[in-house]
């Protein structure tokens, strides 16, 4: 017999109660594992953007377009090494529920800017540049719909009308599949030729959604951004130039403050668990007051009993939390498959799991501290009623 055996026997003295506490902790860590992984994937995806990439958008909101003429003017600014632009298309396939991130881009400059993020076959790249009705499909979308090179796919827009036939459909040929060169890069997208789009849309001609540029180095980012915004100050389309990371975060913020939502949900779950488990642990130890007094009478030092009680709550937390994290890992893997790569890098990563284990230990210590302290200070004479 060891202290651990004693601890184990005490923990499972009331199996149903212990099981329910473990279940509560389990649920909390499933929530934490799933939401934490999603948050990490979003944050990590944005953080992996190149440091020297800037995005120029309309100062009012990035939904407002910028004149195409800005492209040339910005390209001429000192410190700008490469530049491309893109236009939001509002694309979907067959059904409006099948939304696909679809962008009208300048093929050559776009692929040059994202050369380190995307892998694309040279032949496919050439085909994309030379065929005005072609598109490059991200791996996640190609896999999801089973598209292959040469397929002609009707892509619909929920914003624009195709003036050639008055429909909302553009029929595009798959020139190639783009693969992520970095795990965190999202391949749930379609890019097609801006020239084709610009000529066939019924409104907003010669405008672009945003301009992405590469500076000579991250050190000149602020200067270049200020120069661009100053250049278009007091014009009809003033600009807001920011790093691609900041732009990515601002874009995610349109979905809501994900970090805040996750913090609130996880926080609420933990606060509830803290109260339930903490209160139950206090009661569980209180009902053993006499046994603790007997242990002290037999000569068990107070610190050893303190360690026992604290160990009990930490073990309880781990027994509920570790399976919770494991199930969260399975759910996240499943979610990642269902999302077809829409959230790149979605997995229960080591930092999220590590933080989870730290939370378990913290939960165990916090919930066990008060009963352990009470056990430490327990007076034998009072506890045994031996006055």
């Amino acid at each position, binding site marked *: *017999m*060891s*202290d651990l*055996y*004693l601890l184990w*026997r*005490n923990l499972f*003295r009331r199996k149903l109660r212990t099981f329910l506490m473990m279940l509560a902790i389990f649920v909390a860590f499933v929530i934490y594992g799933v939401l934490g992984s999603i948050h990490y994937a979003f944050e990590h995806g944005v953080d992996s953007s190149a440091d020297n990439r800037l995005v120029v958008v309309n100062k009012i909101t990035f939904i407002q377009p910028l004149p195409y003429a800005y492209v040339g003017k910005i390209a001429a600014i000192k410190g700008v090494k490469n530049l491309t632009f893109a236009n939001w298309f509002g694309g979907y396939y067959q059904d409006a529920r099948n939304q696909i991130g679809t962008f009208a881009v300048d093929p050559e400059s776009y692929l040059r800017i994202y050369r380190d993020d995307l892998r694309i076959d040279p032949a496919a790249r050439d085909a994309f540049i030379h065929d005005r009705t072609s598109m490059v499909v991200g791996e996640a979308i190609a896999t999801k719909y089973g598209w292959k090179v040469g397929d002609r796919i009707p892509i619909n827009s929920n914003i624009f009308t195709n003036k050639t036939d008055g429909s909302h459909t553009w029929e595009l040929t798959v020139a190639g599949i783009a693969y992520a060169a970095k795990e965190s890069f999202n391949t749930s997208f379609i890019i097609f030729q801006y020239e084709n789009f610009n000529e066939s849309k019924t409104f907003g001609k010669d405008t672009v959604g945003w301009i992405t540029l590469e500076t000579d180095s991250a050190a000149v980012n602020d200067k270049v951004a200020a120069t661009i915004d100053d250049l278009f100050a007091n014009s009809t389309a003033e600009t807001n130039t920011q790093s691609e990371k900041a732009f990515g975060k601002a874009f995610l913020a349109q979905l809501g403050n994900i970090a805040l939502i996750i913090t609130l949900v996880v926080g609420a779950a933990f606060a509830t668990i803290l109260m339930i488990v903490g209160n139950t642990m206090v009661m569980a130890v209180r009902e053993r007051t*006499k*046994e603790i007094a*007997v*242990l*002290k*009478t*037999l*000569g*068990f*030092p*107070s610190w050893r009993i303190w360690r026992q009680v604290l160990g009990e709550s930490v073990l309880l937390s781990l027994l509920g939390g570790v399976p919770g994290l494991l199930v969260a890992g399975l759910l996240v893997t499943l979610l990642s498959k269902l999302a077809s790569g829409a959230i790149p890098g979605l997995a229960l990563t080591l930092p999220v799991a590590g933080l989870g284990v730290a939370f378990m230990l913290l939960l165990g210590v916090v919930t066990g501290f008060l009963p352990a302290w009470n056990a430490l200070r327990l007076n*034998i*004479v009072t506890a*045994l009623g*031996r*006055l």
Partner: protein
Amino acid sequence: MTGQTLIHLQDVSKRFVKGKDTITIFDHLGLSIPAGDFVAVMGPSGSGKTTLLNLLGGIDQPTEGSITFDGGRVDTLTEGQLARWRAHNVGFIFQFYNLMPTLSAARNVELPLLLTSFGRAERKRRVEAALSLVGLAERADHYPREMSGGQQQRVAIARALISDPKLLLCDEPTGDLDRTTADEILAMLRLLNQEMGKTIVMVTHDPEAAKYARRTLHLDKGRFTERELVA
């Protein structure tokens, strides 16, 4: 056979503060118990019997006076030192057995050995020996709820003996048992005293139980009123 003094109380006073009142339990009490003695302590409720047992067992400290055990002061020890002292020198037997309900008889008996450096095999050997001594070897794997009061008390005795203490303190050890079982337990205590030389101090309300002791001390209002040799 009794020998030299094992435990000695000199001018021991014990007072409790309760609200604005100070309650005096003992006022300059003196007592010597030789090694190998078997003392029954009797007296009405509130006479200080249990407090005396607490002081002898080092789970309470006197307000004044000194307590020596085997020549060494006990009343000056810190809480941690007292815990170690109890583990090595004192075995406790309670009225309601106070076994751990989550542990089997063998595990209950083994508990005090967790405070020693004995290995698993040695602990197992000692537990088997102690349970055999109290006649419960075949009930080693039984839990307290599966045993009668008398059997539980015998497990408690085995637990008290396992670390081979010099002093056994018994607080109404037969108070919860029927006459026949009580006699079995008391006979066992007498055997431990006579055959193994254990010094026993037993608090009891039962004059029949006191007859098993070598002598009886009567305590009333914090003072010994009569000393009577029985054996």
